[in-house]
């Protein structure tokens, strides 16, 4: 276990963390403001990646593809909201689970139909490719730094938006008590649509940003969805601040856990069982963390709604 | 049964509750005497329902003690207080929809009887539960609606069911949170008669806005203003108190 490796994995953990934050932010807002459990958020992330690949194939420029894919993501998200989701606000969570589960099936297999099951890739823009020397003997990919920077940037922007603008105030109020906001005469339908569209864009954005690093394939959103839910539950539903803190926490715990679980276990057991048990424990780590947090704080760390 | 020297059924000592910087219950100290009907009145926002919620255990006070029948129940959960004989009705009707009127009351009977971990036998048909439930329904004038769905009742009937459920628990202390809320004059008279018939059989705390009912029923009245009790006394004393009149500026007291 070298210091360099520790540093690299810490940075990787931060990168995963900001990625999770971008996805979780939309999820927690939609849940907080509309009380809507959106399992389909993961496929929106996947769709962003696929759209970026598709547009890149046409325009051959990463940044143009990024913008187009974002807009297309937003459009598709709003379409889904209009056709399906808005009829489910106020319905049982159970119904929302099944409907969004259906959307997952539809999109996961839809992209398989359109683009095939083989993983696709999106190249990093030339200017931001390659690696940078952070320390003697330590190279770190530029793109990953871009992701971390973009993530923090979006987080800062979201914070300013939510804290200092009128719409942000309405969102915070809505997350705390949507009926009250509606009773005050605010066009709640429009607010919901804005929140949902924004969340979709964030998910799509993270999909686009991660596409150059991971492979773009059907079902890539499923596991990240679970992580995102763990994030918002630990952070507290409806809280952007909670999502940020929880996302970084999860990103670091998961990444560092996976890298060093075997090494840490080797301190207390023989190499062979350590190598066997280590990965399993690493995978479970975040769930154990969530269980512990929920045991102590049944509503997460910073729930938007009181109690 | 001696009154003044008996152990109070309920003793509140320095009860306080804040929601953030808002003081909702301000150092409330009060004794409720056995068999009395004690009314709590006060302007809107005085904190009456919050007080009742603390008494029944739905809210935990920040400071102070609640002593019920000699035991400190301040931190006891609602179900255990209920089993000790503290029963309440809700201001906003809180019945079990989807169940019949009879089942609503039978469930309260079932709670009192214990042994609810029975996995077999149709509970809805048990005579041991339904008979006492029907008795309570007769006393509250709801027997003719025993098999109606609780949802299908009129507002006044729901309030009567609310009371029936509370009575089925055979309470030592009955907390009534605005039982006359939203019902018309005829049904109010019926409720008043019902409560008058119950007077003496159990101790009751009545939170109410309807002053006619309050002065018809109360043995003593406490006035709650902005979370603290400004006056406790006999109805005639309370009526004449200038502080109370000020607190009720504009409200009819007759």
């Amino acid at each position, binding site marked *: 276990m070298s210091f360099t490796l520790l540093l690299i994995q810490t940075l990787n953990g931060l990168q995963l963390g900001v990625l999770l934050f971008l996805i979780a932010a939309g999820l927690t807002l939609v849940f907080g403001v509309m009380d809507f459990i959106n399992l389909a958020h993961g496929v929106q992330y996947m769709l962003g990646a696929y759209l970026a690949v598709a547009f890149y194939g046409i325009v051959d420029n990463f940044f143009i593809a990024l913008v187009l894919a974002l807009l297309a993501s937003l459009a598709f998200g709003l379409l889904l909201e209009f056709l*399906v989701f808005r009829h489910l606000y106020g319905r049982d969570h159970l119904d929302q689970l099944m*409907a969004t589960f259906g959307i997952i099936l539809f999109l996961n297999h839809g992209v398989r139909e359109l683009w095939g099951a083989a993983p696709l890739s999106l190249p990093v823009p030339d200017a931001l490719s390659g690696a940078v020397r952070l320390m003697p003997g330590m190279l770190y990919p530029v793109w990953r730094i871009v992701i971390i920077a973009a993530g923090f940037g979006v987080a800062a922007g979201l914070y300013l938006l939510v804290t200092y603008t009128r719409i942000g105030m309405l969102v915070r109020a809505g997350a705390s008590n949507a009926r009250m906001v509606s009773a005050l005469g605010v066009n709640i339908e429009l607010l919901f649509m804005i929140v949902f569209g924004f969340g979709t864009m964030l998910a799509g954005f993270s999909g686009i940003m991660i596409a150059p690093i991971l492979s773009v394939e059907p079902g890539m959103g499923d596991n990240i969805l679970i992580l995102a839910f763990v994030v918002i539950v630990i952070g507290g539903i409806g809280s952007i601040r909670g999502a940020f803190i929880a996302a970084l926490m999860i990103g670091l715990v998961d990444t560092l856990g996976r890298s060093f679980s075997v090494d840490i276990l080797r301190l207390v057991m023989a190499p062979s069982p350590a190598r066997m048990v280590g990965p399993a424990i690493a995978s479970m780590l975040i769930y154990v963390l969530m269980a512990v947090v929920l045991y102590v704080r049944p509503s997460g760390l910073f729930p938007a709604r009181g109690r | 049964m001696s009154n003044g020297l008996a152990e109070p059924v309920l003793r509140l000592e320095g009860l306080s509750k804040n929601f953030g910087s808002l003081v909702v219950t301000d150092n409330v100290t009060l004794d409720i005497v056995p068999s009395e009907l004690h009314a709590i009145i006060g302007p809107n926002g005085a904190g009456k329902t919050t007080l009742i919620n603390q008494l029944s255990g739905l809210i935990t006070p920040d400071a102070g003690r609640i002593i019920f029948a000699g035991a400190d129940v301040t931190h006891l959960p609602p*179900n255990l207080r209920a089993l000790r004989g503290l029963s309440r009705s809700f201001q906003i009707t809180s019945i079990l929809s989807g169940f019949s009127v009879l089942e609503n009351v039978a469930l309260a009977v079932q709670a009192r009887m214990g042994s609810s971990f029975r*996995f077999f036998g149709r509970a809805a048909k048990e005579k041991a539960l339904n008979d006492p439930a029907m008795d309570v329904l007769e006393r509250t004038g709801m027997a003719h609606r025993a098999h109606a769905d609780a949802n299908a009742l009129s507002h006044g009937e729901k309030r009567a069911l609310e009371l029936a459920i509370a009575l089925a628990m055979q309470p030592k202390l009955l907390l009534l949170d605005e039982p006359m809320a939203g019902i018309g004059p005829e049904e109010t008279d019926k409720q008043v008669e019902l409560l008058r018939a119950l007077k003496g059989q159990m101790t009751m705390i009545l939170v109410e806005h309807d002053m006619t009912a309050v002065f018809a029923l109360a043995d003593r009245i406490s006035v709650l203003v902005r979370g603290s009790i400004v006056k406790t006394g006999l109805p005639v004393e309370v009526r004449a108190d200038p502080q109370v009149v000020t607190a009720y500026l504009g409200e009819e007291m007759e």
Partner: protein
Amino acid sequence: MSGATITASQTVPAPRLAREIIRPALIFIALALVPLLAKLLSAQYLLDLGSRVMIFAVAAVALDLIVGYCGLVSLGHAGFIGLGAYAVGILSAEGFGDALISLPVAVGASMLFALATGLICLRTRGVYFIMITLAFGQMIYFIATSLALYGGDNGLTIASRNTIVGLPLIKTDLALYYMIFLFLLGTYLFCRALVSSRFGRVLRGGKVNAIRISTIGFDIKRYQLVAYVISGGLAGLSGFLLANSTEFVSPAYMSWQRSGELIVMVIFGGVGTLDGAIIGSAAYLLSEAWLSGLIENWKVVFGPILVMVVLFARGGLIGISAKLWRPQS
């Protein structure tokens, strides 16, 4: 003051009782006749499909018990199925191939896990509850993948089906089919009795108005915990049946997608009806079998079907049939 003018124990109006008996009777008669149908059509796969429907129906009924009657949405129930299945697999690998051992262990282990996790899960509500059940399901899943000794990710083949008291009674698919049938019938009848019992009434009341139930004198969490443990045990039974049927166990049996499918089955059929769970299992698995024969990428079609069921068919299939049967209800 007894002697009420209306008899307290009046019988439930007849039509409803008929529905409560006729519908399940039809279901079980249909299930009992499947092997006959398979023989007539010379379609062995119908027997397998029928077994599968019933195995998941046991789990779905168990899930409906807590979802439909307690209002607790568990997104980790496949974990209990997996526990039950792995109990059979591991015991078989270690030389204990008799149902007399593997059945109690399967159900017992599941109940213990349900008790331990239930104590934590029931401290939460709403979506937090959903997520923490998901978490525990994932935990069990990852533990299974790490069991290198028992196949790990690839799963474990079971040498042969359980013997019953030493006799190879379920060696044939037909015999297994009827054993599963009996277990489903037993599970169903047990749950039916449970929900109309004193215990079940407290649960149902708690689902409708938890505050009222607690101020009447019930510690609703305690009742929900017992229901959760029973539900977990029955799902473990489903796993026992699954392992014996497929003679194979794998972590895939407990993925969160499987838990999601169980929820879909319950909703599809009609939440809170118990019959609906069986119907939902049949509808889901039959759709899967039929659609996959028509279109290779059948889930592209199935997804929107689920969405439309949610939007337009509230109360699932049972809800639809009730509206057709009694348009004025």
